[in-house]
């Protein structure tokens, strides 16, 4: 398998005739670099320096509400994180939320994409309506779910379920995590559908036709022809999606406020509590460092997938 960087260079068309950097003059080299610098410096200043400061603060005990509390505390913040029950809960909830949302929305997204790729009536309108949940402001979507669809007294869903013997179920109170996952799946299924549909549409329909002629049934054709082709697209959707879902904050803030107790508190919500309710700068910074480590692990896989797609694209 090609490495990520060599795929980039083959896609970018560098490394060949375009990259004669060794032979060009220094002035020319700077002229080439110049357009890049403003963006580079800007991103560097706003992301890297704060990150270094985050690492620095994570070794201090500092509460904004207690003036003069700034003092070096070594690894205390990290030890606190490891021994703190809340951290374990937040990490577990983050993993649970991310994995279930991505798994369910990939499966549903694949199903919907296949429907939209077949000869159904009104495909264009279906696709248009289908992407609405992804475009709706997440806070707005979560509020509508909570207050007008799920509210035990006035909501539509508990009322619709009463004939089935369920008396005014309080979804948010009784199944908080299921509620958060449902709302997030509602939002991310269209995202997966869009990416997977693009994959399906790049398929040559004659190959499927030939498989049918050769006696393959629908499932076999899906399993052996369609799935291998769209697999990179599914992976791309899953990994990009997980980088976003790991950061879920809006829907938790609106639906459950992390509760009841800490039942739906994930890492971002925990950070919010520690930093902006407790004003513990040192502890919040330590959470930040841990979050970065978790994300780097996820992102490494995501980038690899991205480059595989680029390679597929380049070959075409």
């Amino acid at each position, binding site marked *: 398998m090609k490495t990520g960087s060599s795929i980039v260079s083959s896609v970018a*068309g560098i490394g060949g005739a375009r990259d004669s950097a060794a032979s060009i003059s220094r002035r020319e080299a700077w*002229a080439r670099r110049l357009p890049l610098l403003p963006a580079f410096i800007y991103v560097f200043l706003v992301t890297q320096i*704060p990150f270094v400061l985050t690492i620095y603060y994570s070794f201090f005990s500092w509460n904004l509400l207690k003036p003069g509390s700034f003092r070096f505390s070594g690894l205390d913040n990290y030890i606190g994180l490891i021994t703190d029950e809340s951290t374990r809960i937040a990490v577990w909830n983050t993993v649970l939320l991310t994995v279930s949302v991505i798994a369910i929305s990939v499966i549903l997204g694949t199903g919907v994409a296949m429907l939209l790729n077949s*000869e159904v009536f009104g495909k264009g309108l279906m696709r248009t309506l289908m992407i609405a949940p992804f475009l709706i402001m997440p806070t707005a979507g979560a509020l509508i779910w909570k207050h007008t669809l799920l509210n035990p007294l006035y909501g539509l869903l508990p009322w619709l379920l009463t004939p089935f013997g369920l008396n005014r179920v309080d979804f948010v109170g009784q199944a908080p995590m299921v509620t958060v996952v449902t709302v997030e799946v509602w939002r991310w299924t269209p995202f997966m559908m869009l990416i997977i549909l693009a994959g399906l549409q790049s398929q040559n329909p004659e190959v499927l036709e030939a498989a049918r002629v050769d006696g393959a049934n629908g499932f076999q054709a899906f399993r052996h022809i369609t799935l291998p082709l769209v697999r990179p697209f599914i992976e*791309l959707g899953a990994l990009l999606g997980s980088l976003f879902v790991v950061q879920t904050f809006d829907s938790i803030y609106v639906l459950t406020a992390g509760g009841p107790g800490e039942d739906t508190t994930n890492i971002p919500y925990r950070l919010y509590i520690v930093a902006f309710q407790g004003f513990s700068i040192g502890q919040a910074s330590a959470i930040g460092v841990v*979050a970065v480590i978790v994300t780097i692990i996820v992102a490494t896989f995501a980038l690899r997938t991205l480059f595989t797609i680029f390679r597929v694209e380049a070959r075409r």
Partner: protein
Amino acid sequence: MRASMPIRSRLGWSVVGWLVVFIFFFPVLWMWLESLKTEPQAASSPPTLFFIPTLSTFQEVLSGDFPPFFINSAIASLVSTLLVLVLGLPAAYALAIRPIKRTQDILFFFISTRFLPFAASLVPLYLLARDLQLLDNILALILIYTTINLPLGVWLLRSFLLEIPNDLFEAARVDGASFRHEIFRIVVPLISPGLAATSLICLIFSWNEFFYAVNFTSSVAATTPIFLVGFISGRGLFYAKLAAAATVSSLPVLLAGWIAQKQLIRGLTMGAVK
């Protein structure tokens, strides 16, 4: 499932498809319906299904304290989007058309910052904003949204620039065209779909952003999602108003996304899927 599909199974699958789409679209539809009700109709038990639609709730929302929030959202997303284009286009140009040494390292650097969790830089940025008197100032949100979207913009614009045939630039250079000439006469006209895709994605992410907005603003610079969540705590049972405000808040991104569906998918995958 090609054109040979018999009409009966075509109909069958259409019904299944429309059912699924209806379920997914229903919360949006319900939001619209609620916004057209009166307040007692919106908070009735059992829910009101048949009613005479009224626009009075919209009127109330739009003449109330909502517009300043909407304007803040518009300023934050439009200015940050413009900054992304201004900073991102030259950078993408440097990375795509006249690649320098270490191009791939720089691309990696950009994209790694996009997926750095906000936890990584939140605390220092907050302290910095506090010390610079930028808390509850729209400028802080503009700068943060530019940071969030710039890496994506660079990748996306670069993917569009790579599609421009190299000969065009060679020809322009032989004619002695300047850098500015190259950008404005060749690049900009050819990648207007790329500029559209980039603007769309920047708009979606900055317009819908909540985390920084809730922590960095309070009243003066607060954006529409802050107005919406205010319904939880302060304003009691105003479901129709909530639905109307949510409808108006969601409209710009919804319309932009619907109009530019082709650009949407390319933008969401940073140019990987065309």
